């Protein structure tokens, strides 16, 4: 139990990641699938940010009084890049969903696949 409490952040990440994965797999609405994907992305970003944390560390800002211990800024930079990638992918997916709606009149995957088959 103590190990779980000590790593509560990892548990939270795992829960959020699995929530996103469930939405992505179980929902038929393409928009909801995309939201599930974004939730998964948030979980991974949160995980990477927490790996930079140092116990009792200061924020890594040169302007302030930087104490002896400060959080690693590298994961923040990585996550920033990751967010940019995620935004570009989300926008592309949204554009595709708009086009699918224009062409087929629906964004429910099961209905789209039914029409494909018939």
């Amino acid at each position, binding site marked *: 139990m103590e190990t779980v409490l000590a790593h509560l952040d990892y548990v939270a990440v795992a829960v959020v*990641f699995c929530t996103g*994965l469930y939405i*992505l797999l179980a929902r038929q609405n*393409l928009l909801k*699938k995309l939201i599930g*994907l974004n939730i*998964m*992305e948030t979980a*991974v970003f949160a*995980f*990477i940010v927490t*790996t930079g944390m140092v116990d009792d560390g200061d924020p890594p800002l040169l302007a302030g009084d930087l104490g002896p211990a400060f959080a690693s800024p*590298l*994961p923040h930079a*990585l996550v920033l*890049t*990751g967010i940019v*990638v995620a935004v*570009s*992918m989300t926008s*592309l*997916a949204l554009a*595709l*969903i708009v*086009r*699918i709606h224009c*062409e*087929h009149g629906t964004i429910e995957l099961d209905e*789209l696949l039914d029409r*494909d088959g018939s």
Partner: protein
Amino acid sequence: MNGPDLLPLVFMLPLVVAALLPALALKRPELSWALALTAALVTAGVAAVLTATLGESLALRYPVGGWAAPLGIELVFDRLSAITIVFSGVTALALVFSRTLAGGLGPRPALFHALVLVNLGGLNGFAVAGDLFNLFVFMELLSVSAYALVAAGRGSGSALAALKYLLPGAVSSLLVLFSIGVVFALTGSLNMADVAERLGPAGAPAATALAVALFASGFMIKAALFPLHFWLPDAHSAAPGPVSALLSALVVKVGVIGLIRGQLLFGEAAAPALSQVLMLLGAVAIVAGAVAATVQSELKRLLAYSTVSNVGYIALGLGLATTASVAGSLVHVGYHGVTKAGVFLAAAALIERTGLHDIEDLRGLGHRMPWSAAAISAGMVALAGVPPSAAFVGKWQIALGALEAQQPVLIAVILGGALLALGYGIRVINALFFRSPTHARVVAAREAPPSTVLPLVVLVGLALSAGLTGALMIDFVGPVATAIVGAIAETPGGR
């Protein structure tokens, strides 16, 4: 400027030209094709110069901004990176091919050409990235451009196919990013050579196993290794002709190269389990892909499933983990790229000229479009691995590896896969040349223009004859194969 200084050009050149292209071609749209082609050709030249500079050494290193590794970002051009020649060359030929399709690529061909160049930049960057995070960024660059390229087709299903490709692709990228996060938490380093040294002493077997599992499953989705290939047939058959060729010949290889980098990175931490999984899934993929290809009625779907089968060969060779089989897999990555690009472009020529997709409908087309039909026929024979074709070298080496590893069943699988490939190849050849036309559009079809036929002839010619250079290529990738086998087998029993 000497060799290593050229290294960033191999991905910066296509990316910069891609960014400028839509603006440069705004007033003169006809310029965009020529500019894109020039950029791809120059990139191929840069890759060739780098490979020549490599000579006897194992890797060229370029510290970005002068900051030395492991703190700085490092670009590494090793023998695996020589694949950039194939990436750039095939992209250039696909651009030549796309010249006459300009009308079918939407209202702004410049955007299409820019996307193709972004894709090339991502592929090349992926091949020379020396640290894990750049590996991820370049992977995303080429993946996002690939999703957009699938949607570049006119067909009404193309947007849906692109989205069906995007969702698993995005999940696989996330798995890889998650793994990179775990590795960074464990080692505090992102430089791949540095991480490989630090992972063992980090002494966290459970977390390392999690990282291996995430990394491998992410790249297995990218490589479309059976049973994670579910997204591939739709995406590859719905894309416009030249894009199908790029996806099937090049983009899938990113997953394979990722798996190879993973084997070097994780070494013995991944060894027995990952090798077993690759061997098993590879063997199943060879047969399942080939059987699925045999029963397809659409030409492009047949070729897409053939890619699944060929990725199986590469995975099997990696999984067997003998020097011969790994070398076979490495050369098959390049040789299959050339062969599949030629076959897919030939199929695209036949489909574009007639508007027909089913093999049965294309009957008798061999007499109307002799060059394209001959190219696809020769390509199908080359794909099966008839000597001295390119695919023969890889399959032969992998079979040798199976013999070394004393796995006679796998030799049967390798031969069976090749025979099935010959079977579906003959089915296509038979329909094109030895059946009478049933469709009016086949009778009315004309041979494609020279700019379309030239890339087919070049690629299929290479595919048929490149097996003759097999010994040379095996020698060239030899050190990488030895390194992989060494990394896997290092210090048995103790970490």
